[in-house]
């Protein structure tokens, strides 16, 4: 019985690995990798492709896991490839520094999809003296059922991003949203199809995949110096119908200056400091927080990593504690950050190996009244073990008298 079960597990995992390989995307063409400066094709725009990558969001995880899952029940046996031979042992450290060569964001790869703007595309034309950081993609009016949730420009500042969310409280934020981004550089939109709006602007669009809760579709527009990305998710969106939903939204989009956006925006390069790690060491961590319309934007940084983004929902009147970030490096140095209600006097964090650190939530943003009544915390510690493991385990929020107000796990 157990032998049969073991055999089944092995078969399932082998089929899962097999499915990943069958469904893995094609690598880039070799010529796309060649460095600029030669007379070969220039490289892809790293920043641009990352934007598109980020744009593909949920589909990344869902397609990966979906591919893994779909083959478990049985393979059609059509795999044209067979598992490779065992790899030789490593005799040279396979380390590659995480920071790569600087790539000129203005250069564009030759194989990019490069639709042209129609001459009469006034709806999305941009005044030449408008800075990219002041270009926002916005609909003439929010689509029915959507409201603007946040708007921010990145810290580079090479992009602007805004997201519209469902106004229906019964629909979750990952089931219905409209994401609009403008980024400097070029994009690579493989597997997309051209579509020209009634206003004469040519977009590329593609199906983004579906989860149990929603389907998503994507559209891209390449201009000479920048590109726009649009992602739409709806609970009942399907591959067969998404263009019907997407087309009127694309047709309504226009580029506007920040003053015409109708809402204040957050500059992620200039966000107030809410909390710092208790030490003043060089690798100390900082948690920054800002409010954007209906959501919080958080920027964290420490010697071993960092992150930034908007969309957090945290109400100190209703919520007790929230883990917003966790990151670690190869040396087992772990940073965890989050927010807490004023009633929380101490946040205790548990790590692999049984170690615990205690942090006192604080608010250093005296000059930011919109942050009053909300505290932040960020702590860094060294954890024995490998970054291969889950180093941060969970924690507790304690009141001043030691009462446990809430417990939490990894974010």
């Amino acid at each position, binding site marked *: 019985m157990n032998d049969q*079960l073991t055999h*089944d*597990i092995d078969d*399932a*995992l*082998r089929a899962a690995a*097999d499915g*990943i*390989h069958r469904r*893995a*995307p*094609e*690598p880039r063409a070799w010529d*796309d*990798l060649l460095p600029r400066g030669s007379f070969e094709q220039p490289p892809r725009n*790293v920043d641009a492709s*990352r934007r598109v*990558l*980020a744009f*593909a969001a*949920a589909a*990344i*995880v*869902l397609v990966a896991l*979906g*591919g*893994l*899952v*779909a083959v*478990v029940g049985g393979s059609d046996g059509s795999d044209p490839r067979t*598992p*490779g*031979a*065992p*790899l030789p*042992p*490593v005799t040279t*450290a*396979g*380390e*590659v520094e*995480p920071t790569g*060569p600087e790539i000129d964001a203005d250069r564009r790869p030759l194989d990019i999809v490069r639709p042209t703007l129609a001459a009469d595309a006034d709806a999305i034309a941009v005044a030449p003296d408008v800075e990219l950081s002041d270009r926002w993609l916005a609909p003439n009016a929010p689509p029915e059922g959507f409201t603007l949730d946040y708007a921010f420009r990145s810290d580079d500042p090479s992009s602007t991003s805004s*997201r519209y969310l469902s106004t229906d409280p019964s629909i*979750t*934020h*990952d089931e219905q*949203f409209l994401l609009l981004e403008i980024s400097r550089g070029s994009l690579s939109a493989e597997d997309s199809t051209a579509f020209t709006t009634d206003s004469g602007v040519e977009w590329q669009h593609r199906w983004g*995949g579906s*989860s*149990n809760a929603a389907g998503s579709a994507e559209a891209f527009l390449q201009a000479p110096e920048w590109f726009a990305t649009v992602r739409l998710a709806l609970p009942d969106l399907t591959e067969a119908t998404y263009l019907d939903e997407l087309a009127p939204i694309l047709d309504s989009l226009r580029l506007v200056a920040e003053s015409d956006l109708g809402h204040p925006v957050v500059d992620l390069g200039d966000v107030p400091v809410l909390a710092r790690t208790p030490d003043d060491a060089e690798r100390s961590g900082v948690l920054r927080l800002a409010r954007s319309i209906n959501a919080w934007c958080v920027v964290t940084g420490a010697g071993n*990593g960092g*992150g930034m983004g908007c*969309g*957090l929902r945290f109400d100190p009147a209703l919520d007790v504690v*929230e883990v917003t970030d966790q*990151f670690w490096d*190869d040396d087992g140095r772990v940073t965890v950050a989050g927010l807490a209600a004023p009633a929380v006097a101490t946040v205790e964090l548990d790590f692999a190996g049984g170690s615990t650190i205690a942090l006192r939530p604080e608010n250093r943003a005296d000059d930011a009244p919109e942050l009053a009544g909300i505290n932040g915390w960020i702590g860094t510690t060294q954890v024995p073990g490998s970054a*291969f*493991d889950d180093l941060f385990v969970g924690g507790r929020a304690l009141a001043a008298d030691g009462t446990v107000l809430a417990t939490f796990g990894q974010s």
Partner: protein
Amino acid sequence: MTLEDAYRRWSHDLVAFATTMTGPEAAVDAVADVFQRLLADPDRWDAVDEPRAYLFRSVHNQVRHHGRSGTRRLAREHAGWGARPSVGTDPTADAAVATVVDRDLDVALGALSPQQRAVIDLVYWHDLTADQAAEILGVRPGTVRRQLDRARRRVRGALA
């Protein structure tokens, strides 16, 4: 072996390996980034004794270094803060296949960590031993065995 030869020979397997950890589109970027850095530093490539193992380990490191912030950004901007992407069936998969997928197994596999999926790829696709996979991943063999055991127990629970 030139770097171009290595790319043409192993890039598909490297992308598939990275896909197990980070998804298909990030996987393509990760592999491309590794080779672009090696193109910028040819001396490093010339010093490599075991190119295939070196590339797998480099891709693994690349995904680990860049996966964290990327994951956070995606979660915040696209799926809603704190929301975890749910595991769904591949919309392009054959419907008959999808319908026979055991839901518990679906959840079990989806709950595996990227590292556990990397171990599965190395052990079940490349037929590596735990010791060999550990060398590729730069961890102790015991760590690989532990991760593999966790993965198998999750699947075992789903199949039982």
